[in-house]
């Protein structure tokens, strides 16, 4: 019988997965939460021609995949589809999952509810920016790099007129380039890692650099042409302003990211874009029952199979690696999910690229790893949980007073992570601050209750009025019933 492959996520990994599954003759249902395919990487206006393709790496690959998946009669593409839960039943063997999704304009109130079934599920949910808190980071005008990128690429809007891009990692470069392209004056890109860390992380990776050279050279040229300085070993340690950001304090930091006294400088800005890396979006993989590795990414084998039969994962949830890794992993997952084998000749290029890129992006990631000393730029009144407005001082004193070592009681006593974002922004930070506290006690780097912030059975808010509607079944419902009778 023909395989139906369900793909969650229409970014590089999900599109490659859908493309490969179609190549192998499967039917595909692709769910994308945004109104348009492309994910966070290929963001573009409604009218694709309006996109400045010089800022869209691998744009032709996107157009080819999106057009193919969009026009193939074996593919059902559902955009504006927010997957909010995954039901699974290990007892039933094949096709024992149902993806619950709300389809329509975010966030309701009258979206259509669907349940998507198939023989295999590919989770390609991507990642979001990790931004470490600092005093004043809750002021309007302080945004993530991803926010600046999304507004610039998809809407042609600059988040400010006079902007600093700061944090850690190669992602700062395209953010600065996109801002300059939409008319912002970028007065600097501030990388937290030292020049030595950056150089020793990047330079030995010559095969990777060779592969990435055109893209990197493109950004470097762009930055040079717009006279945007790239400075290393610096962090934004405070944002100033009343109703919105008016300036920032920038400090030199040591290799552990501890601010060096006496190095603070003040910069006039009306926006600052800060990203210190990425957090994988794990909730749907966890909801599907997939095991995580010790590194808190979805554990997969060589064929991108998770611990759950017929459930695959590709791209950032298996390890932050960027779009090229995601494309390779997506292709492998799609091919195998559609019944192919990892040893098939057509997968060789993807397998080779994945092996090379995974190793090398790991080295780059290490060069930009968050240093433990960052907590020393926090003040007692620094907001940690933006939703519940829990300050660092309140968090710390409550945890100490109640001797809380479990994440669940920590959330209940401090309210950090209880708000509408469900700890997506502060969760990893709260966990690290708890580790910090425990280590002064000789404690462990895991919470005593074994709870992690990434478990969110309801992956996105749904309205009661929407829940009461009967869900329409999409995918292989009938075939499944037949199959069960055959058994």
């Amino acid at each position: 019988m023909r395989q139906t492959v369900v793909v969650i996520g229409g970014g590089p990994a999900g599109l490659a997965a859908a493309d490969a599954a179609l190549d192998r003759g499967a039917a595909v249902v692709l769910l994308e939460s945004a109104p348009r395919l492309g994910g966070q990487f290929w963001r573009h206006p409604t009218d694709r021609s309006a996109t400045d393709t010089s800022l869209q790496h691998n744009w032709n690959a996107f157009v080819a995949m999106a057009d193919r998946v969009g026009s193939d009669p074996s593919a059902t593409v559902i955009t504006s589809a927010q997957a909010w839960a995954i039901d699974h039943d290990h007892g039933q063997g094949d096709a024992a999952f149902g993806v619950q999704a709300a389809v329509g304009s975010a966030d309701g109130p009258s979206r259509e509810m669907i349940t998507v079934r198939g023989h295999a599920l590919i989770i390609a949910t991507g990642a979001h920016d990790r931004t470490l808190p600092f005093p004043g980071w809750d002021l309007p005008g302080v945004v993530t790099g991803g926010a600046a990128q999304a507004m610039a690429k998809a809407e042609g809007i600059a988040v400010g007129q006079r902007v600093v891009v700061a944090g850690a990692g190669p992602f700062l470069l395209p953010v600065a380039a996109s801002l300059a392209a939409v008319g912002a004056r970028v007065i600097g890109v501030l990388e937290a890692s030292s020049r030595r860390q950056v150089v020793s992380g990047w330079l030995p990776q010559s095969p990777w650099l060779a592969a990435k050279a055109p893209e990197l050279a493109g950004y470097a040229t762009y930055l040079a042409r717009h006279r945007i300085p790239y400075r290393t070993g610096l962090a934004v340690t405070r944002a100033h302003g009343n109703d919105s950001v008016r300036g920032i304090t920038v400090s030199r930091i040591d290799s552990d990211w501890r601010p060096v006294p006496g190095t603070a400088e003040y910069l006039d800005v009306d926006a600052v874009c800060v990203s210190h890396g990425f957090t994988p979006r794990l909730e749907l993989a966890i909801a599907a029952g997939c095991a995580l590795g010790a590194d808190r990414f979805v554990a997969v084998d060589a064929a991108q199979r998770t611990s759950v039969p017929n459930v695959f994962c590709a791209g950032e949830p298996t390890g932050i690696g960027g779009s090229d890794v995601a494309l390779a992993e997506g292709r492998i997952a799609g091919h195998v999910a559609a019944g192919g084998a990892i040893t098939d000749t057509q997968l060789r290029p993807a397998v080779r690229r994945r092996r090379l890129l995974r190793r090398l992006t790991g080295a780059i990631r290490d060069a930009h790893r968050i240093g433990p000393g960052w907590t020393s730029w926090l003040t007692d009144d620094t907001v940690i949980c933006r939703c519940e407005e829990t300050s660092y001082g309140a968090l710390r004193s409550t945890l100490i007073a109640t001797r809380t070592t479990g994440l669940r009681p920590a959330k209940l006593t401090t309210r950090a992570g209880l708000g509408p974002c469900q700890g997506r922004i502060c969760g990893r930070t709260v966990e690290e601050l708890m580790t910090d506290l425990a280590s002064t006690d000789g404690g462990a780097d895991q919470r005593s209750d074994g709870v992690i912030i990434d478990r969110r059975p309801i992956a996105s808010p749904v309205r009661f009025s929407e829940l009461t509607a009967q869900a329409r079944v999409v995918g292989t419902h009938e075939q499944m019933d037949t199959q069960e009778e055959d058994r």
Partner: protein
Amino acid sequence: MTDELQLIFNGERLTARRGQSIAGALLASGRRSWRTTAAGRLPRGLFCGIGVCFDCLVTVNGVRDIRACQRPATEGDVVETQDETLPLRRTEKSR
């Protein structure tokens, strides 16, 4: 079909481009914040821009808690800032 559409934001007319998000339309009009937090009564606007942080929530056509960065603007949308501090008083007033 024209490329522009009209919104009402807190009673004021606002022009948005078709395909634009409500957050994009608000930023383009020079606004930086459109929510007041519950405890600190502090202004918030765009932060993550990709639907993760829920900082940019607005009320659209009478429905609360819509992520402005994820909601495409449509003709005639009535957008209002959310007051997180007074849900009870709001309910009493509207009844």
